[in-house]
């Protein structure tokens, strides 16, 4: 199969076009971004619809596109369970956080968490939560990128990781949030068009009758296949399914790179409408992935399983090749190359968002506000941000290359969601809604969430695999959850609660009432530079909110 053959020239050419466009955007953005508000929040100039696209671009990783299509191809219905959790999560984001984040924060989730708490400990805790989530998520994406590009284009794994990391850093360092946003918007459009065209090709084969597609997929089920139109083939223990479901539906509301997107719009109203746009885009996308997954089963059959690689990640590209006319034909090569380029753009947009949010935690939170106590200049904060981005990017690339293809991508993404749901989500929600919540509660909550979710994974069956041929047992036989969410999320809340009731707050400078009124009404929210964006772009060292920070 040409998927695994040497260098794929069509793919290289299309990759080059996509990369050229993104670099052009980065140059355009670099001319416009100078202040911190430009660098972290794109000058708050992004509209609700644009941000909806960008959230989709930030959120739909290669794990969503190739991963879920592959899981549906191999296991059927269970792959679709992930999609449902990923989508329903946006209700949590909309009801509990979107507008409130925009109204009360500035650039990072730590701004919101520390608003009415003692700034330095609360900010440090939030930065720790952000960095833990990004660490797992970013390494997972880098490994995924390496594996896919290696398979699709034919270059070596380490070179693929290096290329991904380099472009990611270009966007973030030179173009900040503005370039990252537009890379995410373009990626979302490419991804939606790509999957729509592929779905139409698939549905055309069955006379545009999706039910016939399921029937055909079912007919391709042989005795050795794990495929089923019902559940239970991939997620075998109900408690594990529940645990994963919890991590997905609450974790999205704790993902720093998603929440950071709400600071790029002019006001709370735009933040709210951007979530609804994202729901429709992401929901439409996940419905289409089922056509790709079931279509791959119906068209490629059981014979295609081996060629689809680990987790079925290559099912979608292989299907594209088949739909275009088969291996070796011009149509087949071209369609494969297009889908490969879409997958590459997908990864780039996600990792850029991740690195930007991590560098926000280092530069804006830890350096500017904790170490320098707000006495640094904007110029200094952005310089530190760029250094932080390079360092974080380099570390992630090094770990991805050293850990190699052996790192389990979907497991690490699941872990990132679990850390986000256990550490960031409880602290953020309680800071915004529980009057008595205090600094000690925030710090113990985040620490409990991070330590429990990572600790539980370390003793889980995924790490402590059983002897070959036998079931994985985990370090202790009484604990067999692969995803820690079911236990670590309640522990995160418990940590927040106990820390609060067992301590006395002193020295908080702003009241809960101020945060409460501000988050609910937008009164006193960080301003927008949209009105004077033309001419001098978002580059102005704009308003007094920055001047007096």
């Amino acid at each position, binding site marked *: 199969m040409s998927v695994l053959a040497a260098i794929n020239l069509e793919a290289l050419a299309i990759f080059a076009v996509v990369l050229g466009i993104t670099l052009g955007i980065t140059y355009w953005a670099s001319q416009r971004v100078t202040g911190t508000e430009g660098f972290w929040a794109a000058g708050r100039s992004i509209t609700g619809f644009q941000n909806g696209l960008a959230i989709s671009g930030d959120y739909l990783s290669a794990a969503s596109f190739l991963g879920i299509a592959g899981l549906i191809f191999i296991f059927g219905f269970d792959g679709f369970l992930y999609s449902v959790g990923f989508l329903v999560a946006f209700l949590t984001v909309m009801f509990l956080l979107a507008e409130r984040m925009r109204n009360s924060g500035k650039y990072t989730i730590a701004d919101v968490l520390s608003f009415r708490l003692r700034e330095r400990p609360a900010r440090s805790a939030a930065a720790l939560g952000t960095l833990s989530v990004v660490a797992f998520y970013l390494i997972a994406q880098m490994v995924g990128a390496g594996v896919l590009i290696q398979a699709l284009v034919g270059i070596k794994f380490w070179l693929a990781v290096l290329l991904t990391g380099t472009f990611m850093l270009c966007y973030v360092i030179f173009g900040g949030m503005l370039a990252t946003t537009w890379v995410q918007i373009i990626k979302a459009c490419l991804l939606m068009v790509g999957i729509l065209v592929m779905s139409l090709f698939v549905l055309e084969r069955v006379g545009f009758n999706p039910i016939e597609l*399921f029937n055909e997929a079912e007919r391709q089920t042989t005795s050795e296949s794990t495929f089923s139109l019902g559940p239970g083939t991939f997620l075998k223990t109900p408690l594990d399914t529940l645990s994963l479901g919890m991590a997905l539906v609450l974790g999205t509301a704790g993902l720093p790179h998603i929440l950071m997107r709400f600071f790029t719009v002019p006001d709370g109203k735009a933040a709210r409408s951007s979530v609804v746009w994202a729901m429709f885009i992401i929901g439409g996308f996940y419905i289409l992935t089922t056509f790709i997954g079931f279509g791959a089963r119906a068209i490629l059959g059981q014979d295609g399983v081996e060629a689809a690689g680990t987790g079925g990640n290559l099912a979608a590209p292989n299907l594209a090749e088949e739909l275009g006319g088969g291996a070796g034909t011009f149509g087949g090569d071209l369609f494969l190359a297009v889908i490969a380029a879409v997958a590459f753009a997908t990864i780039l947009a996600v990792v850029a968002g991740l690195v930007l949010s991590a560098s926000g935690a280092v530069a804006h939170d830890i350096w500017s506000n904790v170490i320098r106590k707000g*006495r640094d200049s904007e110029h200094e904060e952005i310089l530190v941000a760029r250094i932080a981005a390079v360092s974080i990017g380099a570390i992630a690339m090094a770990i991805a290359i050293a850990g190699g293809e052996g790192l389990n991508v979907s497991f690490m993404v699941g872990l990132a969601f679990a850390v986000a749901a256990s550490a960031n989500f409880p602290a953020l929600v309680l800071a915004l809604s529980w009057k008595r919540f205090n600094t000690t509660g925030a710090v113990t909550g985040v620490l409990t969430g991070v330590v429990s979710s990572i600790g539980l994974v370390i003793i889980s069956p995924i790490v402590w695999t059983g002897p070959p041929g036998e079931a994985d047992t985990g370090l202790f036989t009484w604990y067999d959850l692969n995803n820690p969410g079911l236990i670590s999320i309640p522990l995160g809340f418990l940590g927040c609660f106990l820390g609060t009731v067992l301590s006395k707050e002193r020295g908080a400078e702003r009241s809960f009432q101020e945060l409460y009124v501000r988050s609910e009404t937008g009164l006193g929210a960080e301003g927008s530079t949209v009105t004077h964006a033309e001419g001098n772009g978002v580059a102005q060292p704009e308003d007094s909110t920055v001047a007096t920070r």
Partner: protein
Amino acid sequence: MERDGGGTDGLSRRRGVDWDAAEASPEFQELVGARRRFVLPATIFFLTWYFAFILLAGYAEDFMGDSVYQGLTVGYCLALTQFLMVFVLGLMYLRRAENTYDPLARKVAENAGAALEAEPQSAVPESRAQRRGAASAGGRPEVQS
């Protein structure tokens, strides 16, 4: 920075926003109550329906694998209802926010002595301005308005 036209006056008033009074005002309580009357039941509903779906997938494999019509299973149909739920609740919240919550929020802001429209350019809560007052002299440019 056209929005700062009458800004000095507005700014000083806003600096003095009495957050406790704003929080206690009937308009604010009405806003919070109205939002809660929708968000709380909606959240309970979506979490219940979502976890019911997850538990069915975990504990009632056979039922979920049953055919509704040929290859279309109960599980797939229930999954589609989750999508429908997300879209409907999203649009309902959007409509309520625009018709009910936003006007109330504007009223709270007006009563607090600052029109929401004028906020973006100069919103500086007092404590923040004081706390970081020293910082602006140290490097951040002071705004000219």
